[in-house]
């Protein structure tokens, strides 16, 4: 038992991203510094100003879902299911055995939900002037659909819902799942984040904000030009520690704590003090000192504002230890997957703990005086770490930081 309840460990992991269709492929690419950002191939680009994204490539829905089920599944739900299947198989659990399903929560983050279906039906209705909208549209578009489908697939009958907080959705969702298992409200959870946001209208909307890079994603360096949109999902099985140990499960990491704060100030400009407070809260919640943390998977979007303020916030939260912690943004490889970001990045956090390798910040050119931490530029680094933070900060000033400890 911790101060606040039971210990929670991660016993299954799955992912799909621009770096691969499994968590293993995604992590291997991260540690090798492979960049998944490329010219857009899945959608028409004639009307786009920005022609790059970190898309999931080589993915055939029909290879994973039968023809009867596929009409109900927006791409975001497909990604959630795909990653959840890997995570559940990895955990070795059968949630339909006994009352396991009743004891399992299913909490999934997504920023925009069924964007592809929404876009497709809007195009038919407005673009083609077709008066008929597909009758499964509501079921495909609704933001809770990924959580429903994952629950149906595995028979999860505990608390289930979607958490939406834009770019922090996955971290907020996983923190909620963590709280449930810690408090005893559930014994297990299938949790993570999913996003399938690379559509023409979404790209246009991001372009209009003028925060998108047109070359690549270069977090924390002087030549950074903004974010690059990504997509995918990360899913995990959280389990109460004593239960996991009893059944001899492979424990990937301990989900040790989380911190969540809101700037309550500006819709886009982050607050150094509130972001720092989320990190300090996560440390305190996990019973960690700054000196215990060897790696921070940064939010690191590569916008001018985020990277400078996140750097200052790390200084504020870590004090003299800020210079000793390795900080990297894996968004330089898998792009910014919005509501899935924290989940794909948890794969990096777990990989760093288990394999003693810090994934790099790729595409790094010259240092920026405003960003003066150790960003592990361009090449992964061998380093044993016993605790990791993973940061996610959303538009609207919603911050969520999670803390992991090695198993």
């Amino acid at each position, binding site marked *: 038992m911790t101060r606040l309840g039971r210990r929670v460990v991660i016993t299954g992991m799955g992912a799909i991203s621009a770096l691969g269709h499994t968590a293993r492929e995604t992590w291997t690419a991260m540690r090798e510094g492979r960049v998944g950002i490329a010219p857009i191939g899945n959608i028409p680009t004639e009307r786009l100003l920005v022609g790059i994204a970190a898309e999931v490539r080589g993915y055939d829905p029909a290879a994973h879902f039968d023809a*009867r089920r596929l*009409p109900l599944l927006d791409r975001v739900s497909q990604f959630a299911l795909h990653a959840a299947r890997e995570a559940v198989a990895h955990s070795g659990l059968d949630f339909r055995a006994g009352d396991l399903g009743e004891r399992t929560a299913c909490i999934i983050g997504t920023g925009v939900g069924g964007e592809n279906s929404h876009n497709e039906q809007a195009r038919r209705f407005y673009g083609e002037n*077709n*008066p*008929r909208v*597909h*009758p*499964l549209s509501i079921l495909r578009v609704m933001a809770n659909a990924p959580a429903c489908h994952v629950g149906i697939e595995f028979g999860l009958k505990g608390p289930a819902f979607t958490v939406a907080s834009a770019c922090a959705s996955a971290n907020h969702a996983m923190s909620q799942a963590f709280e449930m298992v810690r408090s005893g409200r559930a014994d297990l959870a299938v949790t993570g984040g999913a996003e399938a946001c690379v559509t023409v209208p979404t790209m246009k909307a991001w372009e209009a904000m003028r925060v998108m890079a047109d070359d690549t994603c270069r977090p924390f360096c002087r030549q950074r030009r903004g974010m690059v949109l990504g997509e995918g999902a990360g899913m995990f099985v959280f389990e109460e520690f004593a239960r996991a140990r009893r059944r001899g499960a492979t424990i990937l990491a301990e989900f040790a704590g989380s911190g969540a704060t809101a700037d309550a100030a500006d819709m886009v400009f982050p607050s150094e003090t509130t972001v720092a407070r989320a990190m300090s809260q996560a440390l305190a919640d996990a019973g960690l000192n700054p000196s215990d943390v060897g790696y921070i998977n940064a939010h690191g979007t590569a916008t001018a504002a985020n990277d400078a303020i996140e750097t200052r916030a790390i200084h504020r939260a870590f004090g003299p230890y800020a210079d000793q912690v390795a900080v990297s943004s894996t968004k330089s490889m898998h792009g910014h997957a919005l509501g899935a970001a924290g989940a794909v990045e948890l794969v990096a956090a777990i990989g760093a703990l288990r394999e003693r390798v810090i994934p790099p910040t790729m595409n790094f050119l010259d240092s920026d005086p405003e960003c003066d931490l150790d960003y592990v530029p361009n090449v992964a680094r061998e380093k044993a770490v016993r605790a990791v933070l993973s940061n996610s900060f959303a538009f609207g000033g919603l911050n969520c930081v999670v803390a992991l400890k090695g198993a």
Partner: protein
Amino acid sequence: MAARLENPLSATDESTLQDVIFGIIAKEANIDRSRISVDSTLKDLGVSSLDAAVIIFEIGDRFDVTMPDHDANFDIGTAGGLVAAVAKLLAEKPGAT
């Protein structure tokens, strides 16, 4: 999703129409086509309410007609009723012969 016919009016012949509509019902409800007769209700065929909505959508999309929802002049509870409803809507379309 079925592609729309190039010229939907060419399918106004009832037997062709029936053929296409029964085909859509069989495909969307995942049932053997030989089970469907003009008197079959979607309920008899074990079609769920969600599948029925998809069937009505696919038929509408195929023939570019919009099936009324609450209209006593249309009985779309049976397979034959669906065929008759589409024939009626096609006949009422501007430009229909």
